[in-house]
Each structure stands twice: as structure tokens, then as C-alpha cells.
């Protein structure tokens, strides 16, 4: 097992290198001058040139990349052009927020998507199946901003139940943290639920016709036991892989939701950084989400291996 994990980590390194090169290259090819973006309304050419030089932006891109890489290897991700903060500090600040949001959203998505997927599968073709599909697909096609703003207007403004926005760390005030996160996590979760539901459904459809399900029924087990224990346990594997993919997307993809609920996470950070051409931040955050993404995949694979005795034995 440890060998397997080590092997996977080894494989992840080239991927990270590719990611960083891609991001670096693309960013620098983007139109829009970070120096101009940084200078704001100040546009004195001399100032611009000086800023450019001080940030090494006048050097050839490969050199800039190598410098940056050199820093990263030593744990230095550079500083934000915009606020002057070290990128590592920024990441340390946002990462927990993003993770909290992603985890909670994933929980919502799973709570909605997986049961509906199962129910739809065991009732394939019936009205229940239709209803479950409709609910899931509406989650997919209702825009997050709409749901978000409607929830704020309803729950916060009209009912006054939850704070409209803001963020509190769970370590400071767990209760308020939960309160501020519930709505955004729900909004994000509904979007993912559809994908999860559709794939759970098809995995379950495949599993429920397996021979061992018939065996389980022949043993006289209850429907519940047959579906959940024997069926779902087996359908879980593809669902886990998918969940990891979705989770990876969540790490960087929650921009709109973060914006609406003013949650200081990665999504907003990276969008602002891209718009401001804050290269170091973009680099750092993308690299970090890539690590997160690969880690999630690793965890998913490890989980699948653990859940799948056949693969477990192959290790």
C-alpha cells in the first residue's frame, strides 16, 4: 500500500511540472500587462519600466520560469504583485476556507445525488425515476448565482435565519462558521448533485443486474440490505472516482458562489489574480489546486483500492 502511494506521488511530479509550465506559459502569453494592471491610474512610463525591472518581468520567460521554479523548490512562492503579501501566506489563508466549502458542498452533493441516483436506478423507468432525474437536472441547470441570491433574499433578508454572507473560521466560531457556509455549500452542492446522481444511477443500473445481487435476494435478505449493502457497496467505486474529479473542480471552480457569498476562497483569489495579472499568485494557487486535485485523485484511488479487495490484493 505504501509503495502504491509512493508510486502515485512519484507519478504526480511530472504532472505538476506540466501544470506549472502550462500556467506559466499561458499567463505570459495573455494580453494585458501586469505592470499596467498594477499601476492603476498611474501610467508614468518610467515608473512602469522600473516596476517591470523590479519584478524581473523584463527577463525572458524561460528565465522567469526557472527563477520561479527555483523559489518553489525552496518553498518560496513569491509575493503577490497586488498586495505585496507572500503567496504562501495567501494560500495558507485561503486553503482552509476553500477546503471547508468544498467538503461541505460535496456533502450536500452526495446527500442529494447519491440517494436520488440509487432510487432512480432501482425504479428505472418509473415515475420516481423521472422525478429524480428532473430534480437532479434542475440542480445542474439552475445557475448558481440565481439560487444563491434567491436564498440570500429569502433566508437572510426575509427570514433572517442565516447571515447573508461573510466567513468565519470553524476554529474561531464553529457555529457561525457553519451558518455562513450552509447556503454557499448548498448552492454549490446542487450543481454537482446532478452529475453525481446521473453517474450513481448508471453505476447502480449496472450493479443491480449482477449475479451476486440475485444471490443476495435468494438468501432472503431484505430489499434494503440487497440494495444498500450488496448493490451500493459495489456501485460506490466509480462514484468515488467521479467525486474526486468533481472535488478537484470545486477547489478552483467555485468563483461565482464565493463571490456571491463573499467567501474568501481560492476561486475568488485566482480570478482576481488572473484579472490583475498577479502572476505569482496565479502560479501558486494553480499549483496548489493541482496538488489538491492530484491528492484527491490519489485518495479516491486509494479508497477504491481499499474498497475493492481484488485491487487490494494486487498491491
Amino acid at each position, binding site marked *: 500500500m505504501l509503495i502504491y502511494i509512493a508510486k502515485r506521488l512519484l507519478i504526480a511530479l*511530472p504532472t505538476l511540472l506540466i501544470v506549472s509550465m502550462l500556467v506559466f506559459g*499561458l499567463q505570459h502569453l495573455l494580453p494585458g500587462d501586469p505592470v499596467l494592471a498594477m499601476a492603476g491610474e498611474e501610467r508614468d512610463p518610467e515608473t512602469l519600466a522600473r516596476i517591470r525591472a523590479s519584478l524581473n518581468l523584463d527577463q525572458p520567460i524561460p528565465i522567469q520560469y526557472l527563477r520561479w521554479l527555483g523559489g518553489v523548490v525552496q518553498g518560496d512562492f513569491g509575493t503577490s504583485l497586488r498586495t505585496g503579501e507572500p503567496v504562501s501566506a495567501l494560500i495558507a489563508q485561503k486553503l482552509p476556507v476553500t477546503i471547508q466549502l468544498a467538503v461541505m458542498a460535496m456533502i450536500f452533493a452526495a446527500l442529494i445525488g447519491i440517494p436520488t441516483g440509487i432510487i432512480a436506478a432501482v425504479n428505472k423507468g418509473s415515475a420516481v425515476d423521472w422525478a429524480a432525474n428532473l430534480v437532479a437536472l434542475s440542480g445542474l441547470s439552475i*445557475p448558481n448565482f440565481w439560487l444563491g441570491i434567491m436564498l440570500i433574499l429569502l433566508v437572510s433578508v426575509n427570514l433572517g435565519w442565516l447571515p447573508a454572507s461573510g466567513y468565519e473560521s470553524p476554529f474561531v466560531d464553529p457555529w457561525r462558521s457553519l451558518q455562513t457556509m450552509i447556503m454557499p455549500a448548498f448552492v454549490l452542492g446542487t450543481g454537482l448533485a446532478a452529475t453525481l446522481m446521473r453517474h450513481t444511477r448508471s453505476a447502480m443500473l449496472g450493479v443491480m443486474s449482477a449475479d451476486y445481487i440475485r444471490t443476495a435476494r435468494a438468501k432472503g435478505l431484505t430489499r434494503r440490505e440487497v440494495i444498500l449493502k450488496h448493490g451500493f457497496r459495489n456501485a460506490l467505486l466509480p462514484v468515488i472516482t467521479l467525486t474526486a474529479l468533481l472535488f478537484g473542480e470545486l477547489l478552483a471552480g467555485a468563483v461565482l458562489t464565493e463571490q456571491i457569498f463573499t467567501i474568501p476562497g481560492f476561486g475568488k483569489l485566482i480570478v482576481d489574480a488572473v484579472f490583475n495579472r498577479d502572476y505569482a499568485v496565479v502560479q501558486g494557487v494553480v499549483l496548489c489546486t493541482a496538488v489538491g486535485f492530484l491528492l484527491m485523485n490519489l485518495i479516491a484511488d486509494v479508497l477504491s483500492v481499499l474498497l475493492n479487495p481484488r485491487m487490494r490484493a494486487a498491491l
Partner: protein
Amino acid sequence: MSAADTQLAPAAPRAKSRFWTKFRRNRAAMVGGVIVAFFAALAIAAPILPIDDPLATSWTAIRLAPSAEYPMGSDEIGRDILSRMIWGAQASLMAGVISVFIAVASGVPIGLIAGYFGGWTDTIISRFTDALLAMPFLIMAIALAAFLGPSLSNAMIAIGLSAMPIFIRLTRAQVMSVKTEDYVEGARAIGLGHMAIMRRYILPNIIPPIIVQATLTVATAIIAEASLSFLGLGQQAPAPSWGSMLNVAKNFLTQAPWMAWWPGAAIFLVVIGFNLIGDGLRDALDPREH
């Protein structure tokens, strides 16, 4: 010859027509087909329908609620939402369908090659796919917006390319399981080339999950088009698309909620439509399903 022969079903019609009969018999798929066809017809017929000019503005009709004159209301600069919905159908449907097509047409072959050949090819493709999956959509989109220039078709390329990695992964995983089937080995045994095996033996057998994913991606693509037009890549104002209408409506959710309803509802319907068609296709393409 003997017993076994007589068990055969009555003469079967040709493959293609059978596909259609099966598809047509599937009620859900037909509902989906009708929905999509309806919107597609609207999109095509937009120029000849007796509706207002979707670009005509009226300073005296800013954000009017639905009424006889503006059946779906008017927008933030006094345009008729109904006619914008109809004209916008084209951009949105194209964004949904063509970008998914691009994603599938590029992702599936790459995944096929990775899964089929394995080894180093697979390693390299997989590493790149992971890297692409970890790349933020925004950066790719801005870069493409800059390099390709602003147009709807370039937006579709951008969306398509960003949806591609998922299809690579999905295809690869499927291929890995199908390629061990006897019939694939059989194809090799009769001396078929790799291309022919991939095209005729593997591809048709890995289609179902790809269809599921593709129909789900249609929704994301329609919505993504709007965020791209925002970056100067998609349908450019004032030309309408559902996504960009929704995007604008976001700023008037409390003042003019109907501005969000219509494009939202249309996207929802189209997504349902495509998913139903997808389910139907999957069943109809499978000769085993009855």
C-alpha cells in the same frame, strides 16, 4: 438446418432503420427530441417569425414586466425578451452542441489512443490530461479569447477544449475494460489494423457513458458561453444568447426577475431534452436493448 435455426426472430430490418424505430418507440427520448427540435426550429425560424427586432431598443420600455406588448417582458435597455430568447436560441444551442462535439471529437480519440496502446503513450497522455484538468478554465479562456479573437465559434472551441480532458479520462477507462474482450482479440487475429479495431470494435462499445457525460456537458457549455462572452469571447453584445441574457439578468434579480426566468427555463428544458435524447440514444444504439 435444425432446431436452433427455427428459433430465430422474423427477418430483421436493416440496422439504420431499426435504430430509428427503436429510438422512436422510446417515449422519453421522443419527449426530449421534441423539446430540442422545438428550440432548434425556433432558432432556425427566428428570421421569419413575426417578432420584434431583438436588437431594437426603446428608452421608454426599460425592464417592463411581461405584458401583451412584451409577452416575456423587456430587458435592461428596452428590448423585447421574447424575440431575444428566440434569436438567442441559435447561439446557445450551438454553444451547447458544437462545443460538446469538439470536446467529444478531440477527447474520445485521444482517450482511445491512450487506453488502447497503453505504455508510454498512455503515460504521457494521462499526465497531460491531469495537468489540463488542474488548469483553471479562466486562464485558458482568456488566452484563447486573446489568440483566437472574439467570436462565438472561438468560444465553442474554448469550451470544447476545456471539457475535453474529462472525455479523455472517461474514454480511456472504458477502453481499458473493453480492449480485453474476446472480440477485440478476434479482430486482431483476423489481421485488422489498429485503426480499424479502434474504430469498429472499441469505439461503438464504449459509447454509453460518453453519451451520459456529453449530455450533461451540454448544460455546462450553454452556461459557460455566457461567462466567455463576458471575457469577450462568446456571442458579443448586443447579439443575444441565453447565457448572456442570464448573466445580465443577474444584476436585476430583484428589480426584474423575469429577465432570469426565461433563459433559465429554456436552458433547463434543453438540458432535460438532451439528457432524455442521450438516454434514448444509448438504448437505441445498443442492439441488445429491446
